[in-house]
């Protein structure tokens, strides 16, 4: 039981961290609450299903192809629908919801509402301490950790990363320092959607694919980002682990846990928020213009 909680908690935590970090990045750099974020995650999972299962491509081709296509769609959506109306924050919010609905409906029309599964990239499992951990789990965990590490390196060590962080801190001053904030925002969108896409293609064999699979992760990602503090990458990471472990513990230990898992995770988020209104690691947006 304890080891189950550990394994599944770590696994879910890693996936949520991928999604939450991407969400946090685009909020920081462009102040966009991108509610279509997990829809990109779903899109990537379906892309793998399409290329890998329908067209029977080898995973080594299908996976990068899916990621690239989803990132291109993300950047396209950003340039065409979000950038021109960035001044109207509420309109951008609804645009992201509409984008998510478009993806959901397009998938419903193309693939139908059936539950779909993708076969694992690697088969087999190991059996330490009596729990079954498939290689797919280990692979996912590895890829997710590597991607998070890569994003952290990009953010901390490269010129682009410094630009992203500075425009997250103060967009206007970043602009005055001669950075092209619009292009930085587009690059951030690409990274953010890319993270969601990597998470999507990696968990596609572990999850059941269906056109509404973006809603539940979205609620959790929002909770995680708020819990960790908006715009804070470290906060998103720690928040993801906290909420994932809470969720898994509730499912394993409580009767009726499957109904209550989201409710309890959200209740804990609220409790933390009441003590710390800016989240665990958030910067207080008091002087925000």
């Amino acid at each position, binding site marked *: 039981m304890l080891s189950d909680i550990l394994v599944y908690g770590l696994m879910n935590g890693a996936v949520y961290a991928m999604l939450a970090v991407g969400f946090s990045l685009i909020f920081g750099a462009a102040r966009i*609450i991108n509610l279509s974020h997990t829809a990109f995650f779903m899109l990537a999972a379906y892309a793998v299903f399409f290329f890998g299962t329908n067209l029977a491509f080898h995973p080594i081709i299908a996976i990068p192809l899916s990621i690239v296509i989803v990132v291109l769609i993300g950047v396209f959506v950003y340039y065409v629908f979000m950038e021109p109306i960035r001044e109207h924050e509420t309109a951008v919010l*609804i645009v992201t919801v509409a984008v998510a609905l478009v993806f959901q*409906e397009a998938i419903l029309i193309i693939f139908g509402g059936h539950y779909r599964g993708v076969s694992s990239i690697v088969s087999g499992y190991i059996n330490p301490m009596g729990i079954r951990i498939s290689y797919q789990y280990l692979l996912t965990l590895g890829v997710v950790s590597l991607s998070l590490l890569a994003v952290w390196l990009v953010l901390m060590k490269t010129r682009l990363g410094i630009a992203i962080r500075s425009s997250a801190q103060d967009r206007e001053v970043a602009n005055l320092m001669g950075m092209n904030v619009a292009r930085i925002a587009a690059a951030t969108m690409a990274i953010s959607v890319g993270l969601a896409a990597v998470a999507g293609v990696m968990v596609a064999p572990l999850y059941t694919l269906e056109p509404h699979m973006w809603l539940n992760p979205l609620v959790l990602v929002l909770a995680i980002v708020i819990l960790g503090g908006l715009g804070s990458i470290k906060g998103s990471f720690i928040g993801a682990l906290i909420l994932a472990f809470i969720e898994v513990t509730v499912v394993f230990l409580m009767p009726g846990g499957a*109904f209550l898992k*989201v409710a309890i995770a959200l*209740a804990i988020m609220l409790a933390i*928020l009441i003590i710390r*209104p800016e989240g665990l690691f958030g910067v207080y947006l008091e002087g925000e213009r």
Partner: protein
Amino acid sequence: MTFIRMALRYIRNEVLVLPTRIIAILFVILLLLLPILTQDMYILRILAIASIFAIFAASWDLLSGFVGQVSFGHALFFGVAAYTTALLNLRLGWSPLITIPIGALAAVLVGLLVGIPCLRLKGPYLGLATLAFPIMLMGIIFVFPGFFGGELGISGITRLASTRLNEYYIAVVLMLVLCFIMWKITDSKIGIIFHAIREDEIAVRASGINTIKYKLLAFCLSGFFAGIAGGLYTHFLRIAGPSMLAVLMSFQAIIWTIFGGIVTIYGAVVGVFILFPTLEILRAAAEYRMLIFALIVLLVLRVMPQGITTFVRDKLERECPRCKVRNAVTRKECRVCFSHMR
């Protein structure tokens, strides 16, 4: 007699001078006289539901548009009122006349319960925290299926009124009255304070105004109106289900309001009356229905991000540069101060 003359003069001087006000008056008259033109059950049903949702969307605008307390969980008020109404009606057999106000009061209470812990939260934090409440309540409803009816909800509730025509008039008249009240609230002294809290809360506090009181007032008012909408909806559809608490329900209110134009109240009404019937007409497109709907929202907001009413108003009317009174775009000089327009 003098009253009629005063009313006529008011209409001529204040209503007929502005194209948008003429449109609003025509809309109200059309809505009230529609049953003369058609008694079609389906059309009456769609417009009655649209009216109920218009109250709901306008209540979101009151809280989130005017006071700036953006709530992503507005379905909470709707759902709480719906379940309260349904349970009172089914278990105690009370009539809609009593259950709907009690449901609305329950929503006010919930508004206070949500508002107090959320007072310290700002901007996106508040929005995403409020998102949590209806989802938590939905979890509770699923855990006690015996009392709340679980996934199927509570059915077998009495009708709002005996005939469809009466139901239509109850919904439409209540919508017009409540939205007018909301519009008047936002136009009053309280409304000015609401505007100011959205623009700069610290400045309002520095002016010696108790912002906590006004923010809680906004939560209660908004909860009250959303609660009435929830109660009406329950009695109209004769069912209260968990879909009334769903995330989509909250976002529908936001989509309608922003589509119609935020911080206007009438924008919310226009948004619902455009988008809700559109969604019904799109039933002809079968499985492409939601796709077309989402694309319409996407493209309209791309062209007019400030919302459809604000866009149209700015096309039809211009503000006088001197006295800030709105004028029809065709006028050469201001209707109040006679200064040249531009």
